[in-house]
């Protein structure tokens, strides 16, 4: 082994312009990039809030009717409520009051619950965040291996089966999947509790397991399809063949070469998935009676609780953008080429 016979080696010509080392350039690139993406937040917040404001105020109904909930009323009562929530001010004034509050971290108070919007939102994060994270974890942990498997068995029965199953999960409305799981796994099998978020760590894990599974399966389809497509693309690559030609084992080639490179698009998709799951969790939370952001949003929408709707929309938009930024940063870590003219988007 390793006995290299001395021989005359033709030296390479000097490199025209060696590409500099990774560290400085990339870091600079990333921070510039993140800053640029963060800048979107300002116009985004403006547009989202103005749109939300315009919509909630232009819409008939609104909080008054919701507040009264069909109970007997009179103009006096209505006037009192309007005064309390300053609903008689011109919309622009209301907006200004609200947005300057937001700038100071005060998102106002919910009309329905009289509680601070911010505390309502933060209170629900300990359901929605674990739910979404668990959902994405399941989607990724199931989707990627299954996608790899499908790609390895390309064109064969297993592949078509897996692809069809993934499409099935994508095509099943989240709420239907949730009801299905609730009925069969929760009720018939009795493995999971049927409602609520549970308390303490174990209870929460137990209660969130089924909804997270539903979310995960719903998202798995996308992740699996993408992984499969990316893996197939990888399998065509020269470097895969070259790795095999060097005698590297098929597991090594599949994991360290194909999967490693396939991860680049797959991670981007995971970011998308988080956005998608947020929507999915609205429905799943409703079915599983979970006090998360989703049920909060649905309730506020039904009640016309617009301080809450505005706060939530702003929160969600910011959340999604931050996720996208985070994904792009992860992306930069798994793709060493980022920052050298290979654009991310």
């Amino acid at each position, binding site marked *: 082994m390793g006995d290299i016979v001395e021989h005359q080696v033709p030296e390479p010509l000097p490199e025209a312009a060696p590409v500099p080392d990774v560290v400085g350039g990339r870091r600079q690139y990333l921070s510039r990039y993140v800053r640029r*993406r963060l800048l*979107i937040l300002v*116009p*985004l917040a403006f*547009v*989202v809030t103005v749109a*939300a404001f315009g*919509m*909630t105020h*232009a*819409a*008939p*109904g609104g909080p008054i009717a919701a507040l009264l909930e069909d109970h007997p009323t009179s103009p006096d009562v209505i006037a009192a409520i309007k005064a309390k929530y300053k609903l008689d001010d011109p919309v622009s004034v209301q907006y200004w009051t609200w947005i300057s509050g937001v700038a100071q971290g005060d998102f106002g108070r919910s009309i329905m619950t009289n509680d601070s919007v911010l505390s309502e939102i933060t209170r629900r994060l300990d359901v929605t965040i674990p739910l979404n994270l668990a959902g994405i974890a399941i989607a990724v942990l199931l989707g990627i291996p299954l996608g790899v498997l499908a790609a390895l068995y390309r*064109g*064969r*029965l297993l592949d*078509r089966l897996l*692809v*069809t199953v993934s*499409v*099935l999960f*994508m*095509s*099943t*409305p*989240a*709420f*239907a999947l949730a*009801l*299905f799981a609730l009925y069969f796994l929760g009720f018939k099998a009795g493995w999971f509790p049927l409602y609520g978020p549970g308390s303490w760590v174990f209870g929460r894990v137990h209660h969130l397991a089924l909804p997270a599974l539903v979310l995960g399966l719903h998202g798995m389809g*996308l992740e699996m*399809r*993408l992984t499969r*497509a*990316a893996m*197939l*693309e990888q399998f*065509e690559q020269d470097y895969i063949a070259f790795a095999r030609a060097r005698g590297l084992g098929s597991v090594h080639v599949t994991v360290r070469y194909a999967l490693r490179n396939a991860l680049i698009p797959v991670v981007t*998709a995971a970011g*998308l998935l988080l*956005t*998608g799951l*947020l*929507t999915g969790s*609205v*429905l799943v939370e*409703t079915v599983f009676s979970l006090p998360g952001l989703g049920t909060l*949003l*649905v309730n506020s*929408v*039904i009640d016309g609780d*617009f301080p809450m*709707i505005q706060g939530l*929309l702003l929160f*969600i*938009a910011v959340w*999604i*953008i931050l996720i*996208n930024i985070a994904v792009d940063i992860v992306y930069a870590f798994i793709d060493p080429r980022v920052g050298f003219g290979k654009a991310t*988007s």
Partner: protein
Amino acid sequence: MSAIATASPRRSILRRSGFHRMPSFFLVTSWLIVGLVIFMALFWRWIMPHDPNEQDLLNTSASPSSEHWLGTDQLGRDIFSRIIAGAPSAITGPFIVALTGVVLASSLGILSGYMGGSVDMLIQRFVDFMFALPGLLIAIVIVGVAGGGYWMAVLVLSLLNFAGSVRIIRGASLEQRALPYVEAARTLGVPRHRIMYFHIWRNISPIVFASAALDFALALVALSSLSYLGLGTSPGVPEWGRMLAENQALLFTNPAGVMAPGLAIVLFATAVTVIGDWIYDRFSFSGRTGR
């Protein structure tokens, strides 16, 4: 010369090739499902056994029988007929969403990919922005707050759900733009709009259609989700999503009545997606990966 074939490679070839010769069960089934739904959408008036709106208040939540193949719902209406009568709305809304998606996403995506520069920047930022707005979520908010039901939902989904397609189409257009045939067209004086919306469009159209098929399926699912929250079609309209939501109450008395609309949605959406994939594989001129 000796030509002794060794056994093992042959076996592996057979194993490998076996499936390719088999007609794709899933694809054929998908075409059948889509064909069936289109058939139902066109001829529902003539093929349904009952008036889908005819109520029988004394025979509600009935189990399947020879009279009512899928039983009846809470107002005693024939679920089988309602499934058939639901076909048009299962196609119309998603079709509009997918079509608007195709039109908007390909105009913007190709423009962005081909023109580059500040136009690209602008469209990209716009798409980033749209991405921060999850379509279904916004639809829930808008339809919930402003009302408007099904058509508002269709409108919102149409306008919000194409951002993903723009990115895909932009990427594909970027690839095409760098190809010599596009550059040749430029130097030969072919007008820009023709390069973009004739040459590039035709070459990326499998991608467009595949993503439109996916949009269609996702819109179907999204609209049914809205119906579940009571934000879709008008009550009583035989629409699968709404039926699924309404018929939930039949879970114990007529489970078939709950499953049927759910299955209709799932199978139709799946079939459309499978066909979209097939279009992509079959007609893609260059082998790129889909989403």
